[in-house]
């Protein structure tokens, strides 16, 4: 993301870093005013893009609607999250969405952008005059605007017991349990998951059975603990998810691998669990 900013207004970046230590409200306004002052000194001509954003307010409940906002791409950052922050700063402060790290590591800003699930801070705004539609993660209960209810998703993650479980104590008590580099390499592609829920909410099987099917994210983490050489409860973990609904609702649709903003492949990990179930 940093590379994209080199050609653009470099002035905005230092201001962001300096205001990072201050309160969040101060941070909102400083980015907007900096960008505006830079834009006025830049060349003429606007580059307007329309964003259609899903709005629903529980305080004035009616039907949810897509509201249009026009943004000048010349004084806005390259990512969708920059556009959302600009809209919230300057046009409509009531727009509600989750965000935190703005660098694709926290997973808070997961939403559906132009039909594809992804992180708003990592999705570039598509150039051109086509309208961009931003809606919350599909088939999730909406709390307000783009904020969805993630409790079911987190409970499913909790249900696979994502911690190290051992029967025998460590060989050297008080010291870490040793693991070879080869065994550690088995965890690559699973430990990077940030629990953004993009994969689970892109899976049609998860849409139709959200309460009983665990979903690609939880199963990816289940495989992470099953494949961990330090964990001694492998058999029990496999038995716990050896269920018609928890695991076998997966029909290798593989929408999860397409949606993952970190480039992981939950479908592959689920296939690995299924193979272990077969052989075990």
């Amino acid at each position, binding site marked *: 993301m940093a590379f994209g900013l080199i050609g653009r207004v470099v002035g905005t970046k230092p201001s962001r870093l300096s205001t990072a230590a201050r309160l969040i409200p101060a941070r909102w306004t400083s980015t907007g005013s900096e960008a505006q002052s830079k834009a006025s000194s830049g060349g003429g001509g606007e580059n307007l893009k329309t964003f259609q954003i899903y709005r*629903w307010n529980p305080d004035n409940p009616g039907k*949810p609607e897509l509201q249009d906002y026009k943004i000048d791409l010349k004084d806005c950052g390259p990512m969708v999250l920059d556009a959302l922050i600009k809209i919230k700063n300057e046009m409509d402060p009531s727009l509600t969405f989750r965000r935190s790290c703005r660098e694709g590591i926290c997973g808070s800003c997961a939403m559906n952008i132009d039909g594809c699930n992804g992180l708003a801070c990592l999705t570039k705004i598509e150039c051109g005059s086509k309208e961009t539609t931003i809606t919350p993660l599909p088939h999730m*209960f*909406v709390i307000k605007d783009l904020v969805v209810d993630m409790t079911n998703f987190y409970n499913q993650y909790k249900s696979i017991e994502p911690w190290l479980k051992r029967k025998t104590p460590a060989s050297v008590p008080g010291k870490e349990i040793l693991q070879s580099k080869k065994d550690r390499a088995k965890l690559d592609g699973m430990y990077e998951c940030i629990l953004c829920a993009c994969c689970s909410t892109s899976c049609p099987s998860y849409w139709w059975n959200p309460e009983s099917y665990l979903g690609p994210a939880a199963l990816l983490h289940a495989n992470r603990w099953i494949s961990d050489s330090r964990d001694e409860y492998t058999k029990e973990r496999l038995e716990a998810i050896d269920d018609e609904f928890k695991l076998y609702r997966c029909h290798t649709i593989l929408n999860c691998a397409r949606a993952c903003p970190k480039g992981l492949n939950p479908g592959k990990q689920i296939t690995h669990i299924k193979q272990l179930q077969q052989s075990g």
Partner: protein
Amino acid sequence: MGASKLSGMQKQVLSLYRGFLRAARSKPTEDRKRIEMIVSTEFRHNSKEVDRKNFQYIEYLLRLGTKQLDQLKSPDIVSLSSVKVVASKT
């Protein structure tokens, strides 16, 4: 009695109300009255104000109520209290 045949959603609302009253019974007497008062005012207010066909909002309120009930059921929670907020249009 009320309606002759209650719809699924109406049954959910009633069972949530009953759940709240049962949870209130397990709390000390003074708090119990306060919980019952708050819950009954909230439910009566919503039953008058909310349109019967606004399913999305009713489901939203049901989910919110179920979460609050789960919190209330925990033995550490002593009582409920409510504050009246007047939304300003600025």
